[in-house]
């Protein structure tokens, strides 16, 4: 029940997407009906023509000619209807696939970061790309063959009945066997396909990791080990693929065998009837063609059913993503932060990524407009956690964060994030031109503003020297830029936005100190009058901070300014003094 129930559920969801294309669906069904009717009409005409060819000297050429003209017209119409049907199906399938992809991507944009941090990129990508692709193939096949199949079966049955009831009964009795066979196989293979799809996902994840980090793989000569791991999954995939493919491919021969039984059955009963004068040879020929046409769709349908099984398995994985719980939406009465002066209060904040491991406990902090907050502490003490909370990438577990006196869960994310300018330790650039990347926060910025910001961030000189200047296309993940250049671009990006508050996460660590001095000057100007949170290593930055938060093991253990903390002689003093020791 479980597997079947889920499948049904998936099917219903697919139907929801189809609804939008009802026009194409209707037209396609109509055209399918036309095609089938005409295709069925042609054998009747052919049969009639054959009955006019009795033997030597007994051929009615005039009659035959009249019939053949009719055949010609029917053929032309069939072809036209068929083409129209195919085009409709195409539109529908690719349209639906586009809709699903769009929705999946939209989902990615509103998924909580918790989901993104916890799932491998390769797996998510495989859902959006490979699974949707497979689904499209299955769906297209389903559309093109399912309708025509079903309509053909019904149509043939009706026509056969009008010709001869006895033979029709023979046909109808034997055919369901092929359906049963197909159904049986499909049921058995659904799980095999699912296993195959999962194993593929696993493999994609490994490829993503190893190929994505090839530099490290090569530096450590890990190629052989990677190969080994790859081969292990590859071997498993080989096994389960073989199973899925072989067992599903039995369907076709099996149903074809049933067909040949039907064909023989019609042949024999027909022949006996013909001897008794029940039907003519032309009618028999016509019935034989129908018997073929009646059973063929069963094959096709069974083929389609396996394909659809596969498609549904893929669809289920996509829907899993689409139905993933999104981040908590902005509160209905959420207000837009405006005229931010820079008051930030953290009240009794508790937070941890996993309930088992407590991180921040009952933390309080009051930041007045224009103050600089430096977060320092040994590596890995959870400094970036604070950024996650301020930007509302994660929500606090207890307590609240207030900006301008408003709980940040009561303001729109958009206005909150606009209020902050952020430079992360891990630089991220999107593929596109340098300019595209700079104007991310302010698409409407003028050329002058862009250049001014780039100059302020000392990025202008290197950008100018690139082959196409600001129009240089940077590849995936900024591959052709140095770490420092990427960093400079990220800073330019924030520089252009002139945000109300700043968050800097070790942002300047990869830039040489000469440049950095200039950047710090620029930042100092930027920070002037703006509340800033800085995850800092540089003592000069720290010394000038109004508030220093000293973190250790996820907790804020000391809080104060440089002088007071030094006087305290605690952990901060210890950190500070160790700086020049080698």
């Amino acid at each position, binding site marked *: 029940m479980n597997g079947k129930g889920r499948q049904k559920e998936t099917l219903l969801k697919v139907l929801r997407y189809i609804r939008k294309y009802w026009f194409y669906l209707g037209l396609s069904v109509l055209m399918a009906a036309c095609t089938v009717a005409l295709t069925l009409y042609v054998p009747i005409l052919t049969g009639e023509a054959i009955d006019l060819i009795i033997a030597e000297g007994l051929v009615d050429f005039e009659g035959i000619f009249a019939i053949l003209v009719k055949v010609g017209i029917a053929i032309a119409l069939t072809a036209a209807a068929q083409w129209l049907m195919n085009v409709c199906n195409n539109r529908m399938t690719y349209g639906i696939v586009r809709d699903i992809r769009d929705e999946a991507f939209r989902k990615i944009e509103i998924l909580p970061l918790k989901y993104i941090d916890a799932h491998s990129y390769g797996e998510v990508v495989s859902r959006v790309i490979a699974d949707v692709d497979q689904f499209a193939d299955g769906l297209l096949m389903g559309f093109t063959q399912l309708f025509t199949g079903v309509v053909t079966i019904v149509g043939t049955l009706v026509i056969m009945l009008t010709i001869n009831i006895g033979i029709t009964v023979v046909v109808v009795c034997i055919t369901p066997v092929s359906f049963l066979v197909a159904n049986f196989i499909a049921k058995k293979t659904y799980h095999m396909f699912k296993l195959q799809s999962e194993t593929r996902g696993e493999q994609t994840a490994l490829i993503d990791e190893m190929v994505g980090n090839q530099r490290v793989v090569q530096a*450590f000569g890990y190629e052989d080990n990677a190969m080994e791991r790859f081969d292990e999954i590859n071997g498993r995939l080989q096994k389960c693929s073989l199973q899925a493919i072989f067992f599903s491919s039995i369907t076709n021969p099996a149903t074809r065998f049933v067909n040949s039984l039907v064909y023989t059955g019609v042949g024999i009963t027909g022949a006996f009837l013909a001897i008794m004068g029940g039907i003519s040879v032309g009618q028999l020929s016509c019935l034989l063609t129908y018997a073929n046409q009646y059973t063929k769709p069963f094959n096709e349908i069974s083929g389609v059913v396996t394909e659809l099984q596969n498609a549904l398995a893929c669809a289920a994985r996509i829907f899993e993503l689409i139905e993933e719980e999104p981040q908590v939406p902005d509160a209905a009465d959420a207000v837009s932060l405006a005229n931010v002066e820079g008051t930030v209060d953290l009240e009794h904040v508790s937070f941890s990524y996993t309930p088992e491991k407590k991180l921040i406990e009952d933390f309080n902090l009051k930041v007045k407009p224009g103050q600089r907050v430096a977060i*320092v*502490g040994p590596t890995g003490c959870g400094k970036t956690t604070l950024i996650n909370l301020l930007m509302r990438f994660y929500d606090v577990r207890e307590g609240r964060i207030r900006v301008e006196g408003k709980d940040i869960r009561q303001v729109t994310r958009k206005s909150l994030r606009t209020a902050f300018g952020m430079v992360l330790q891990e630089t991220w650039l999107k593929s596109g031109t340098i300019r595209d990347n700079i104007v991310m926060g302010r698409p409407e910025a003028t050329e002058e503003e862009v250049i001014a910001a780039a100059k302020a961030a000392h990025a202008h000189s290197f950008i100018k020297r690139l082959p196409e200047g600001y129009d240089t296309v940077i590849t995936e993940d900024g591959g052709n830029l140095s770490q420092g250049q990427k960093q400079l671009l990220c800073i330019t990006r924030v520089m252009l936005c002139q945000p109300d508050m700043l968050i800097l996460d070790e942002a300047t660590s990869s830039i040489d100190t000469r440049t950095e001095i200039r950047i710090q000057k620029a930042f100092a100007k930027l920070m002037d009058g703006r509340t800033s949170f800085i995850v800092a290593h540089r003592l000069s930055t720290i010394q000038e901070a109004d508030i220093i938060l000293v973190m250790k093991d996820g907790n804020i253990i000391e809080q104060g300014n440089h002088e007071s903390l030094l006087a305290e002689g605690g952990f901060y003093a210890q950190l500070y003094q160790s700086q020049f020791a080698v």
Partner: protein
Amino acid sequence: MKKLLVYLKDYKKESILAPLFKMLEASFELLVPLVMAQIIDTGIAQRDKGIIVKMGLVMIALGLIGLVCSITAQFFAAKAAVGFSTGLKHALFGHIQKLSFSEMDTIGTSTLITRMTSDVNQVQSGVNLVLRLFLRSPFIVFGAMIMAFTIDVKAAFVFVVTIPLLCIVVFGIMLITMPLYKKVQTGLDRILGITRENLTGARVVRAFNKEEAEIGRFRDGNENLTTMQMFVGKISALMNPVTYIIINGAVIVLIWTGAVQVENGYITQGEVVALVNYMSQILVELIKLANLIITVTKALACANRIEAVFEAKSSLVSPEPGKSTGAALSAEGTGTETIRRNGSGAASPAVTFEHVCLTYKNAGAESLTDIHFQVQKGQTVGIIGGTGSGKSSVVNMIPRFYDATKGRVLVDGRDVKDYTLEELRGKIGVVMQKAVLFKGTIRENLLWGKEDATEEEMWRALEISQAKEFVETKEGGLDAKVAQAGKNLSGGQKQRLTIARALIRRPEILILDDSASALDFATDAKLRKAIREMEEAPTVFIVSQRAASIQYADSIIVMDDGEIAGMGTHSQLMETCEVYKEIYDSQFKKEGQAS
């Protein structure tokens, strides 16, 4: 596609047997209309019920044999196709791993991933179908024609005209759609790229409120893809109707010719039925063939893309094993500026750069110009300089991530090109700017550095890299889980683990490429101290932005715009090198006073 066929080699038997059994099945299928003609002409005409029953049994027997043959064929085809893709993926993965940094830079990661996954899948279904049906269908088509000849030569000429006509249509459409499918695949690559980007950059996208814009960008790419798919689909959709017209046109002609032949007494009515039956068999096969061709066209396009990956050859050529070189002597006496450790001399220097220049692929200007220096074993060298000054480029050339365009790099007095990559990189521990860890446990990540490392060696490496403390507090210690890309660790933790990973192999040369940037000063200092105190201390290259990190190095190389601006000890450089002095002062003036 041709080159990919080698991966079918191990499945020769299967790839021959599959079509063979299919053809066997088809031959039995071809006999059916003849048997039916017998029923009509003998059974019905002579009212012989015995013949009718006998022929009926023959038909069932034919069906049964067909079933067995067909299942056998399916099995072999599936086995060959899956085996093929498994072998192909293995080879592709191996090949990609061998590509050097320059090739990876130009090709891009995401397209490699699609090629390894969805493209290979498409090719696999293509191979499977081809093995099953591509021989069978033409066989039935031509078989039907031959059978027609046995019935009546004149009527058979209808087949002779029809079949080539069909071939033209089928292959014509195939030729037109093939390049289009390639475009579709490129479109798919693009949206894959966007998806990946948005996963890796989720934080930035949200921080800049770009969700809507990104959705728009994805939608454009997606729309573009859909339009292309629909266009190709429209052309492919012509296939069925056109073939249908041709075949049924032929049936019309056939009936007319048949009528004439019967009138003249050459053939019987039953034989006309047989002829029409053969023609409709061709139609059925062609419909299959047409659907197949769509799949095969796609598969071929994918196969080409895969081939393109195989064609990207690694630009780094390893020497043939056994070929020894006499390069060791050249370093001496060429007037190389030598950096010597106090007192110790002799032996060949650990690393030598001889007038090295480097130009990256597709880059106009040189990134490194005339780099010339020598480092003795056990020394610590600091490399400092501005962004894009070429610091990383210099160290990247030691493990041969990139090859010099001019000049040469020597390790232990031997040209790096004379080492096998394995041997060369085995001597070197590299810690890159970007700290990359892999999904698994801490232990597994450390084992990257040395496969057979003992527990003790691991803890020792962790101790030196200042990671021991936090690893100990992790649940499970060495067996604590590491998420993909080390997402559950902080930047500093990741960096220290990557350093431990490099240390564990006890490298002769250790390269720290700005890899302590996320460490606080105290940890950074402790780390450097611990490395210096290692027994059999490695030759260390520290690339850094921080003067404090390299201040105490045996020698400091100051890079400026791809050239060496100064070289020497801290005190020497303070006297002679303007660039260095400026860097140092900028960092230390204030802080120096404070301490």
